[in-house]
């Protein structure tokens, strides 16, 4: 457990340092960012450098950053002139809501479709496969705008915007969840069908188990291992997809904060978002390890 904690901290430090270096090496400097599109004179530049302590060497700024980080101080945003912790605090909630809802929608859809269609007639499989392919290959932006046009603008079932109430969460969650359902559904069905060809399936059928019971009680467990591995992938895709979804639906959230920060080279915010996502990955991969043990008794040694 201690080793795991240490590894997690090392990942966090590496993520912070790598993103710090990447931003340092990227073209342009922080003063340009702070000057922005506005007037640019030596006096204005000097004032900005003084205000933010940008005249110190890079290594000093980096160490000062790590030191503050150890004290739980994420710094101040260059762009919005507010504390980074405060910005993230207001934006984490909506993103967590969105990603959990999207993950739930994706996993549920994938599970349902895979269980219902595995080992069924060719026509049904082909139709579902095609739908999955569409969900995976169409850009989320298009999925979102079509969902909006049909279910919000035309039918008026769901409001277009805001994080207000569960109704406003449905379309964004579907936008983000459909591609996940597509990939996961394919993997899950493939796994199920392979499992159904195994000798144990034959035995179970011989015991008189119905096909449905065989799929849900026995084959599903085998099919879950590759699908669970994919959960790591879709955590990343959720964070990335959140950007598009949040902008499209006018939702608050981390995705937008991250994009604005990267384009504006708002170093303190970028670093905080990177650290947060690294944290999420560490937690998820730990949970996945535990999940493997629960699903597959062979790994419990």
């Amino acid at each position: 457990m201690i080793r795991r904690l240490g590894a997690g901290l090392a990942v966090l430090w590496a993520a912070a340092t790598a993103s710090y270096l990447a931003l340092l090496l990227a073209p342009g400097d922080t003063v340009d960012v702070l000057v922005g599109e506005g007037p640019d004179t030596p006096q204005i530049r000097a004032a900005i450098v003084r205000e933010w302590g940008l005249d110190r060497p890079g290594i000093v700024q980096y160490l000062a950053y790590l030191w503050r980080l150890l004290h739980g101080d994420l710094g101040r945003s260059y762009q919005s002139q507010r504390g980074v912790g405060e910005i993230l605090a207001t934006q984490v909630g909506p993103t967590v809501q969105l990603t959990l809802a999207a993950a739930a929608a994706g996993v549920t859809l994938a599970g349902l479709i895979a269980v219902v269609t595995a080992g069924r007639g060719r026509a049904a499989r082909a139709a579902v496969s095609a739908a999955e392919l569409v969900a995976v290959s169409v850009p989320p932006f298009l999925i979102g705008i079509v969902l909006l046009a049909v279910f919000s603008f035309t039918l008026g079932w769901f409001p277009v915007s805001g994080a207000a109430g569960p109704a406003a969460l449905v379309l964004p969650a579907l936008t983000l969840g459909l591609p996940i359902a597509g990939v996961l559904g394919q993997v899950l069905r493939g796994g199920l069908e392979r499992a159904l060809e195994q000798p144990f399936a034959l035995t179970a059928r011989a015991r008189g188990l119905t096909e449905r019971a065989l799929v849900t009680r026995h084959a599903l467990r085998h099919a879950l291992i590759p699908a669970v591995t994919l959960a790591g992938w879709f955590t990343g895709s959720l964070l990335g997809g959140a950007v598009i979804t949040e902008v499209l639906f006018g939702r608050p959230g981390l995705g937008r904060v991250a994009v604005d920060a990267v384009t504006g080279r708002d170093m303190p915010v970028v670093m905080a978002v990177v650290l947060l996502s690294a944290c999420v990955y560490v937690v998820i991969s730990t949970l996945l390890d535990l999940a493997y043990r629960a699903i597959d008794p062979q790994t419990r040694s």
Partner: protein
Amino acid sequence: MKRLIPALALALAACGAGPAAETAASTSLTWAIETQPITLNPQQWSQNKVRLLVFNQFDALLTRRADGSFGPWLARAWQVSDDGLTYTLHLRDDVTFHDGTRFDAASVKANLDQFLVPGYNPAVAAIQLKAYKEAKVVSPHTLEITLKEPDALFPDFLASPYAGQVSPASLKSARDLKFGGTELAGTGPFVLDRYVPGQELHYRRNPAYRWPPDGAAHQGPAHLSEITYRFLPEAAVRVGALTSGQVQVIEGVPATEAALIGKDPGLTLKTALNSGTSFSYYFNTSRAPFDDQRVREAFREAVDVDAVLRSVYRGTATRAWSVVAASGPFYDPSLENAYGGAVAKANALLDAAGWRQRDAEGYRVKDGRRLTVRSVTAAPYVRDRRDVLAQAVQAQVKQNAGIDFQVRIVDPGTAQEALDANEYEIFENSRGDSDAGAALNLLLPGEGALNRTRFSDPRVERWLAEAGAESGQARRKELYARVQRAVVRERALVFPIYVPADQIAARKSVHGLGFDPASGTPAGAYDVRIGT
């Protein structure tokens, strides 16, 4: 591809959505806007797109009219001394801030002096307030402001968001002063009571409001009891939200959607030209090939601007002829049709400049070098389909004159590096300053903070300096007309393309929507009401 999608969405939306039932006598309104404010402190304001929010919460000292003159607001009268160095403001004595404190000469002085705090707003301190020396409280409601030198733009400052009056108590107590938000108390017709970043702003009416600017359509408190501004950055989503009745007003209607709004009998669409400067290409004269005036002229002659604007903006854009936007009082109409669009002339000029040979791809060549010009633009500042516009210009100069126009859209850091390293030939810019002179002061003098032509003309500098110190409107207009003729016609430093505009679309039941005469951007919600 991305352009097709909004049209698709609208086509789908138009099939089923009837105008939603509107509740009679409702006095709350939802307005979808494109851009999220970086800051809600008026004295830190930097985005013209969110100017419509500033004057809901705050009032300035003066108001600027469409003809460039000034009217009373929180200052009911003012005098300027003959030497232009002393401004005496006579303030209203019936104004209170949202936090209950009184507005008086001492609070105006506190707001002015706030800019002297190092790091508070270095840009405003160095530009708009460069002449500010001190403010003296003469009586509770009389303030005397002394300048170091005459500054014709000082009244423009007094009418700008920067002069939005903040309660001195909240200037001291606000935790996030530079960000503003609900903690800053203004005197405006609405009180900001909720801000959800990424989602919305919510204002409620200030029932004590009795001090609208000169030119307001009514007196007393605002008509609306509350207003919500919702952030919807995607134009197609804004339009869909409007057509389906989920919001009553939107701003920012791109050309691709304007026709669909016009066809809906339940909606209205209003457009106004922005103040400031036109969207223009500025030629870098410090390096080849634009160090040669003939090449600069040839570039302009090679483009059929009307055809380009028709294809990119479907006839909704207004062609620019001068660097100064056609909406402002200083615009010089004598430049109209004075240049441009003569392809034969473009080719003759390039031949004369020595660019005679052509290479295998049809581009002109001189001494083995291709006639290449580059523009480098930071992606976050690309708006109004200016990327598509650049491609249309690129196609025209290639086809008509064999010029290789390379368009790069990059991250802000790379763009800044290219500008610093002088690795560009064309600089794209438009500015929304309420006084065009303020923009010209940045763009044209040799030491100007945004001078990307790297050209300096002593005559232009002299005229700009004189206009900057001159308070007579007619004389300023004459001087700025000279400046425009010099940089557009005589020197061909600038290629004006179109005048930026703003649009408001709304349900028919919403009245009193309009544009801020100073900026040409959507006005605040003070006069807005919901009728039948």
